[in-house]
């Protein structure tokens, strides 16, 4: 397929997934706000979310005195490219550019998502952030459903999935990062509530219970979302999908990128859970994010950036 089309589809997948990641992170924050916490712990948690998303510099520019609502900013600010509304708008622009390459139902679902999001933008009041998170969560499921059911298993499908799974991997690591750096600074030790809330917003609390019949412990949560192949959004599972989609679209340049994916997979498969202890976890996660970034660069170079004209 056209390199430019592949580029649009890959980024469509990434932006949709990113919107969902941000929505889930913010939902976790909203739920944590319901717990009795000292103000500085709440502030630290929100700061950790900003840093994990790489949004802290943008936020500091937007609100130098730090008094703007972090959730509103990450949900609704059009000036910030990583806000939920910006991600959905970009996803829709990418979809529109390739509407001929995806099933009509797919385009319509994404377009409807965007139209309803714009209606939500026009609402006022604190209710609207919660409404947006609900909207994004439901729509993400719907779009995934349409993709799986309606799309021909051609290159369009695979580039879309490549973008989705790579972004999901990245999102998972950042979700863990936000919690771990937020609680790592806690002089009283780990706060199980934060981790429980994280599990719930990822619809994974019951799964945790089934896997580990014990109280919620950060190291176990990290293990679940990094190392376990049976957990749908774990880093390990996402990389299996990335590798499979890369295999289908492989060209004569992509071998190096596949090698990077494979080597990261090996680290996860044969990794030692001791690496996930709370004092070592933040550094571990930072390394993973860097590896994922290199994989993304590799994909762009192999498939998306067009060669110079002879």
């Amino acid at each position, binding site marked *: 397929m056209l390199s430019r*089309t592949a580029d649009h589809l890959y980024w469509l997948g990434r932006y949709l997934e990113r919107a969902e990641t941000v929505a889930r992170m913010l939902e976790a924050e909203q739920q944590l706000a319901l717990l009795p916490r000292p103000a500085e712990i709440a502030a630290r948690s929100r700061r950790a979310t900003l840093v994990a998303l790489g949004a802290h510099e943008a936020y500091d520019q937007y609100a130098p005195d730090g008094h703007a609502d972090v959730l509103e900013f990450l949900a609704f600010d059009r000036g910030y490219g990583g806000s939920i509304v910006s991600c959905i708008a970009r996803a829709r622009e990418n979809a*529109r550019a390739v509407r001929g390459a995806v099933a009509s139902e797919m385009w319509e679902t994404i*377009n409807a998502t965007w139209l309803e999001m714009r209606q939500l933008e026009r609402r006022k009041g604190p209710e609207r952030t919660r409404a947006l998170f609900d909207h994004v969560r439901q729509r993400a499921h719907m779009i995934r459903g349409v993709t799986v059911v309606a799309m021909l298993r051609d290159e369009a499908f695979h580039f879309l999935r490549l973008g989705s799974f790579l972004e999901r991997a990245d999102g998972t690591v950042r979700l863990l990062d936000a919690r771990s750096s937020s609680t790592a600074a806690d002089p009283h030790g780990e706060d199980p509530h934060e981790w429980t809330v994280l599990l719930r917003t990822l619809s994974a609390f019951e799964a945790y219970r089934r896997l580990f019949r014990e109280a919620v412990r950060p190291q176990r949560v990290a293990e679940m979302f990094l190392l376990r192949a049976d957990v749908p959004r774990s880093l390990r599972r996402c990389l299996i999908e990335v590798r499979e989609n890369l295999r289908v679209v492989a*060209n004569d340049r992509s071998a190096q990128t596949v090698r990077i994916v494979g080597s990261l997979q090996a680290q996860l498969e044969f990794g030692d859970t001791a690496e996930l202890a709370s004092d070592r976890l933040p550094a571990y996660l930072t390394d993973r994010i860097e590896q994922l970034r290199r994989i993304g660069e590799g994909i762009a170079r192999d498939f998306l950036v067009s060669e110079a004209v002879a």
Partner: protein
Amino acid sequence: MNRAWDEMIGADGRARGHYRGYSEWLLAQGTERLAAKSAEADALFHRFGITFAVYGQAEGTERLIPFDVVPRVLPHIEWLHLEAGLKQRVSALNAFIADIYDAQDILRAGRIPAELVLCNSQYRPEVQGIGVPQRIYAHIAGIDVIRNADGRFHVLEDNLRVPSGVSYMLEDRRMMMRLFPELFARCQVAPVEHYPEVLLANLTSVAPRGVDNPTVVLLTPGAYNSAYFEHAFLAQQMGIELVEGQDLFVRDDIVYMRTTRGPQRVDVVYRRIDDDFLDPLTFRADSSLGVPGLMAAYRAGTVTIANAIGTGIADDKSIYPYVPEMIRFYLGEEPLVENVPTRVLRDPEDLAYTLAHLDELVVKEVHGAGGYGMLIGPMASREELESFRARIIADPARYIAQPTLALSTCPTLTQAGLAPRHIDLRPFVLSGREITIVPGGLTRVALREGSLVVNSSQGGGSKDTWVLTGAS
């Protein structure tokens, strides 16, 4: 001005025969139901993104082309006659274009003044002598047809460069089937959805000789072009790649597209970009929409472009009055469907008559487009008439004049209920091994009361067009 012909209601105040089925259904509806269905259609068009972008506005400002839920119905026998006339006309037009870029027999026979053609800004000397597959230049022609007060069809204008609107024809039909399925059981309407299939077959058939399984692409200016929806829609319906100029490159006079698996050769380009912007090395150098070197490949015969370069010479208003002459010259036949009677003001007699009857006539600039640069005599003020008179006298060759037509009307849903509004019809004529016309076409409607201007850029809308099958 004559009283306009109404498509639905005859002189006796009753529905015409071919409209009876629909009219009975309509009487049983309330206007509220129609209005509710109309609102439903709008919401769906928005949802499906069947919109066009408005230039220069903030992100996502898109508008609908207004859609009217009352269809325009044509009886089968009328369609047969119109279809024959359109096939004849397009056949002659293609023969004309092929002749102009080849031996120019019609000019040597003196049937058309040579300078009208050779000094025309639409004449492309760059393609003189370059043959095209099957001598077809206008693979897709949009012929604008109106019905006059006497009930007869006339051709108003030919569109042979980048004719558009067919996606609305197709989507209007889908919308009607969705809104009023019961009507399609009651009325036998000829289907239209095979258009993309026919077009693809035709495009494939004009691939350069010897190419097996040709690669056809649709070249678009991009997602910010106002007609982008149609480009994406057609590409998708035909199952071909939608490309922009930057996706293509030319190497050794062969056109390639940049794919995830390296360059892939392109054989046929269905272009929705004007000649001027197609190749910065040959035409406008400032165009970033085109493909440098495309003309070199075209000359080498390694790529077919549809519609071919240079078709504008045949749809120019100064050439329009000579189309009947083309039919006689190339086919030896009399036109089955006539032009609107036209006076060519470079001719002194026509000029004199026009100046003497300016307040009765419509005067158009030969190089105008889209309803601009036009005088509608009966509606003009004293000052407008005088100022236009001065313009004509200063340069008569720039103008043609036609009687004010009473375009036929069709009942249309307005704020105040159903009311007649003026319409025209644009059938799309596809030329390949055969000439195929999908029954009907795009009916455009002037939504403002009394207005004769149907262009969407000036507030026009569209209706579904129903050609009844022979069985009804």
